[in-house]
């Protein structure tokens, strides 16, 4: 109970600070659109195979998402706020989950707004397997969020944060992204998840479970050692 309350307090704080000005979400969304446009130059031809477009979508999600995620612990830096959080009687796990949940919601919102835009730009009928797609989006996003949040904590105090963070985060994300890409690629063709793609789903779920458990266990070391 106490744990859940603290998680909620942290989450509410982050959401409030972020949504004080709705611009954060707006800007992240705008960025997603910009990447969509940029990528359209690369995959110029109109007859790109649909599965490739699934990959494209997750690339956009990854770039736009990490933009939000990077700020998660960076926000605690300016006035040494992290000190006060570490000093407070709250466990690292609660702090981490609170921040991860806030990030998850923010990233999810951006993604859900970007999805229809993606559909229009690339002529993808993404609604065909709506619920299965939502499942994949939620699972993939949670994976991205967990890794992003924990690495944001890991790099918050080191030199070269800005470069180290993406360099460490993206490779770690690849398995989850790969799974989400393959699944999305096949879902947008209208085919439901079948025996061929279910391996990817398992991979994705395994990734989420494994990393959530690892993060919750290890974050205490990161924050206070």
């Amino acid at each position: 109970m106490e744990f859940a309350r603290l998680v909620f307090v942290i989450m509410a704080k982050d959401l409030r600070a972020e949504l004080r000005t709705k611009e954060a979400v707006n800007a992240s969304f705008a960025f997603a659109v910009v990447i969509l446009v940029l990528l359209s130059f690369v995959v110029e031809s109109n007859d790109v195979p649909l599965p490739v477009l699934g990959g494209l979508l997750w690339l956009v999600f990854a770039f736009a998402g990490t933009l939000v995620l990077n700020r998660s612990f960076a926000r605690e830096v300016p006035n040494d706020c992290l000190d006060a959080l570490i000093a407070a009687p709250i466990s690292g796990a609660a702090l981490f989950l609170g921040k991860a949940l806030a990030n998850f919601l923010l990233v999810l919102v951006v993604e859900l707004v970007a999805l229809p835009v993606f559909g229009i730009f690339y002529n993808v009928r993404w609604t065909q397997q709506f619920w299965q797609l939502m499942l994949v989006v939620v699972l993939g996003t949670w994976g991205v969020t967990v890794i992003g949040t924990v690495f944001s904590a890991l790099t918050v105090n080191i030199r070269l944060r800005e470069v180290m963070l993406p360099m460490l985060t993206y490779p770690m994300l690849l398995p989850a992204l790969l799974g989400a890409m393959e699944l999305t690629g096949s879902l947008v063709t209208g085919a439901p998840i079948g025996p061929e793609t279910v391996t990817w789903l398992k991979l994705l779920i395994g990734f989420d479970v494994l990393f959530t458990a690892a993060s919750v266990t290890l974050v205490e070391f990161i924050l206070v050692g």
Partner: protein
Amino acid sequence: MSAVAVEGVWKFYGDFPALRDVCLTAEQGACLALIGRNGAGKTTLLRTIAGFSRHGKGEIRILGTSPRETETRRHIGFIGHGISVYDELSALENLTLYARLYGLANPRKAALEWLERTGLERVRDGLVREFSRGMRQRLAVARAFLHEPSVLLLDEPFTALDDRAIAVLQGLLRDGLAQGRTIILSTHQLREALELASHVALLIRGQVAFHGPCTPEMVADPGLVYARYGED
């Protein structure tokens, strides 16, 4: 059992020994003024006591336990060089947040009370981003006192405060001492600090050069400690 006990603590930054075999104690209800020249190690020591920064050898106990225990943390109040409040939240939101984190029964009430006590009630809904330096420091004071900690670790708490706010803070500290709280504060404003202090510790290049009770003559001439126990 001392409220705060520092035993043989060493702290290195790379090769540089910022703290060398520091031993200090503060009993319950004592006010220890930590003084020392720029770069002597005051901030390092206070951060180490609070458990933010890992030290090499030595041991630190607060109320008999490690400063990293969740239960112990509930009883520590800290003001550092940073002010540890969020620029994007208002003064009231900041304090309410911390009140919640410490699990106070009535967060909003506690927050309002401390805004009032630090003279910030007028700007309670202003974002911290818009505060002047002194207003921020006042908020940091409110944050540190909010959960009625029994050990207060204050790093230059008088910085940026105007005469009135200094008087308020001194009042708060005096009340705290009367209620049995333990205070360790570092400062260069010796006059203000020594008026309150029951004990004085002088750090010189990471070593404790003097540690003892604060005598009336020190209060009368704040430069005395340096003159008598310093090296020049």
